[in-house]
Structures are given as structure tokens and as C-alpha cells.
């Protein structure tokens, strides 16, 4: 994977599309990828034909194409977000147990997910706010978090209230333990794992400025 090994910087924070472009660039050619609902879906706009990426949708398909438009719309052909999509040459359909076996058996190279919080050791919280009275809904989030070889998170670094979403320990109910390997945010790219958090890139700030925002020790990529 085209992972820079020393700390990179850019002069401005990244917008959602720039971030999606960066994630897309980091996906190795020939990979099998599941893009979560919301911001991660943007990544598909920046995958190139040369990369030869195959997209999986957990409701039963490999080889998913772009969103369907006009006459292409077919109620029997939707993605996990229930959006009508298209089929690419070389696609295949399968039932739900077979589809989740692809995820749970560790066959997906990468899944890209949104998150409420990610802990320093890669715990993911992205399914439930835990608010009293909230109706919980999990879908395939836990299977994706636990099953993919690499779990990439895309999110803004800070909440609207200015709190870091990279935390020492998740306060929201978690989706998976130690599963996140990389976090793409508007202010930087973080590598997470058993050894803590490494910063691969910063956008519009220095590592020191980033450290002031994030309540866990940050290391620069060596």
C-alpha cells in the first residue's frame, strides 16, 4: 500500500472530497473493498480503472458499480444504504450468509467506515450514541469492523463542540475492539493499533498543534 513512512504535511485542512481522494489513492490495486454508508461512499468517486478495485455490498454483491440513474434504477439492485446501484462486468450475487462470510472470514482487504470515536488502540465506536431512549440499530457495522483485514475510518477530527473523536477510551458504545488501523480526518491521517497513535500526515496544522487537540500521545511517522 502506498503509505508514506515519514510525516507529511499540507498547508490547509482537507475537505471531504479531498479526503476521499486521498483514501482512494491509498487503496492497493486489485483490492476488494467495502465502503460504508455516508462519507466513505465518496471514495468510490476517486477510484481509477487502473486500480481495478472490486466493491462489495453486504446485501449480497461483489462488483458493484456507481449509483443508478434514470432508466438504470432497478428496485432489485440496491446497496447496503438501500440506494439503487449498478452492476459491473464480472459482478456476482450471493445470499446474506455467503455475503457476510466474505466479511467475517477476513476476505475483504479494506473497509472504510465513519465513526463517532476511535480509541488510541483502535477501538471503534460508530453504531450507537448510547443516548437514553435512542433506538439502537447496528446493521453490518460490527461484522465489517471485525472482519476486514484493514479498517479505515473517515471522519472530522473534532465534534461540532470541538472535542477530539480520537480518544483514550471510547465513551460511546463500541462496535469492535482494536479493529481500526487508520483514521483519515480533515486535520491529519492517524495510524492506530496496539502501540498507540502515529501521525502520518497533518493538514493545515503542525504535529504540535494536532497534539493540543488530541488527548492521547501522538508520535510522528518515523
Amino acid at each position, binding site marked *: 500500500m502506498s503509505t508514506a513512512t515519514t510525516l507529511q504535511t499540507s498547508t490547509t485542512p482537507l475537505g471531504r472530497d479531498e479526503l476521499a481522494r486521498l483514501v482512494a489513492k491509498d487503496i492497493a490495486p486489485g483490492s476488494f473493498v467495502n465502503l460504508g454508508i455516508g462519507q466513505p461512499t465518496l471514495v468510490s468517486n476517486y477510484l481509477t480503472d487502473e486500480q481495478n478495485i472490486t466493491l462489495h455490498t*453486504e446485501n449480497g454483491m461483489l462488483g458493484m458499480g456507481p449509483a443508478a440513474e434514470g432508466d438504470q434504477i432497478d428496485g432489485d439492485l440496491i446497496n447496503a444504504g438501500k440506494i439503487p446501484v449498478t452492476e459491473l462486468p464480472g459482478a456476482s450475487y450471493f445470499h*446474506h450468509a455467503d455475503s457476510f462470510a466474505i466479511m467475517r472470514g477476513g476476505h475483504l482487504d479494506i473497509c472504510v467506515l465513519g465513526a463517532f470515536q476511535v480509541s488510541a488502540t483502535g477501538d471503534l465506536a460508530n453504531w450507537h450514541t448510547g443516548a437514553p431512549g435512542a433506538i439502537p440499530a*447496528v446493521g*453490518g457495522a460490527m461484522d465489517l469492523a471485525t472482519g476486514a483485514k484493514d479498517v479505515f475510518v473517515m471522519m472530522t477530527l473534532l465534534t461540532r463542540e470541538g472535542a477530539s473523536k480520537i480518544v483514550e477510551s471510547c465513551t460511546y458504545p463500541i462496535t469492535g475492539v482494536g479493529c481500526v488501523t487508520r483514521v483519515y480526518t480533515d486535520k491529519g491521517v492517524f495510524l492506530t493499533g496496539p502501540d498507540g497513535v502515529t501521525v502520518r500526515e497533518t493538514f493545515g496544522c503542525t504535529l504540535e498543534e494536532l497534539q493540543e487537540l488530541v488527548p492521547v500521545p501522538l508520535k510522528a511517522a518515523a
Partner: protein
Amino acid sequence: MLNFVDSVQEAVAGIKDGSTVMIGGFGNAGQPFELIDALLECGATDLTVVNNNAGQGDQGLALLIKEGRVKKMICSFPRQSDSWHFDAKYKAGEIELELVPQGNLAERIRAAGAGIGGFFTPTGYGTMLAEGKETRFLDGKWQVFETPIHADVALIKALKADGKGNLVYRKTARNFGPIMAAAARQSIVQVSEIVPTGALDPENVVTPGIYVNSIVKVAGSGAGTSTTTEKAA
């Protein structure tokens, strides 16, 4: 024994109060709307329903819930922008919810059909959905013990059936149909076409007829109509 029946009413007539009913479909794709409407009409109540969601809008499963016929939902994703009937019942404490990660839901249904008494899976380990469940360290990972979900009846939508009850589906409408057909004691299937025995290539059969009990042809429920099947309440 396989039966070809003439109406969705006849197809669901044997469903008893208190049954566990699996309903195929993910979103609208593969939802057997006509069978669900017939279930609403037939009056069976006190049901446990297994579906990925908990009904949307003012149709199908949402109406079953609205009418108070569902005592418990087993699903992965009940909360949606238009799941107002479930939301209301849930907040009123009038419906029980067993929330299951989607892959565990699929695997537990598959286990019931395949005669597996239980299995260990990493999905959900360390989360509130695994609280109180047995865990074990296997294959280098902590895993959670999950048990099969059996059902009395499955309501399924397929594309075609042949005279032996073999089924094929269409695109992502396949979803839960094949595993629910195997997990339920009685599988009731609506299809848009019944073809002569021998017309389906044996290499391409998705659900063998051994898993099918009743088949009913539903006009206009065929290819690609999943999003256009909008019912008045």
C-alpha cells in the same frame, strides 16, 4: 410436501398465533409484500418476526407492527427515517427487540437450516450486544457464542419456481431468502413466474425444492418492481 396454491390468502392460512415468522428482504428488495399483506389480513397475532429491519413507511411489516400483531422483532437495523410504527411501539414498551449484528443474524439463520447447534464468532466481542454471552479465545481471537434462529414459517419472494419448487432470485433481492427457506419448518414463497420442471438449469438453482412448501404466483411482483410496490395503508 410441496403445494402450489392459488392465492396469498391460502398460502398463509396455516400461520398460527404465537408463530415465529421469518420475512425475507433487505429494504424493499426481496420483500414479499403480498404475503405480508395476506398475513395482516389473516389475523395471526402474538408473532415473533425475523427480518433485517422493522418495517418502513405505512406498508408491509410496518403495518403488522402498527396493528400490534408483533410481540417481538429479531433484526439488525430497526431504526430508519420511516420506521415510525416500530419506533412508537418500542418507545411505548409494546414490542420486544432482539438486536443482532447483521452477519450474526444471517449466520444464526444459516445455522438453524444446517443443523448447527451454536457457533463462535468474533463479531460483537467486547460490545454491549455480547453482554452476558459466553466467550472463548479461538483461532487467535476472542469470540462470542451464538445460537441458531429457528422459525415456524418463512415468507419469501423469489423470481421463478419450477414444478419441483426449485427457486431462482434476482440480483440483490436474493438476500435472506435462501437461508430463511432452509431455517423455517414451512417456507411460503411468492414468485413472479412458475416455469415447467426442467426449465431451470440445475447448475443455477439457488434454493432447491426440498426447502419449499408452498408456492404462489403473484402477478406484477417481478423483476425490478421492489421500489415501485407502494401500498396504501
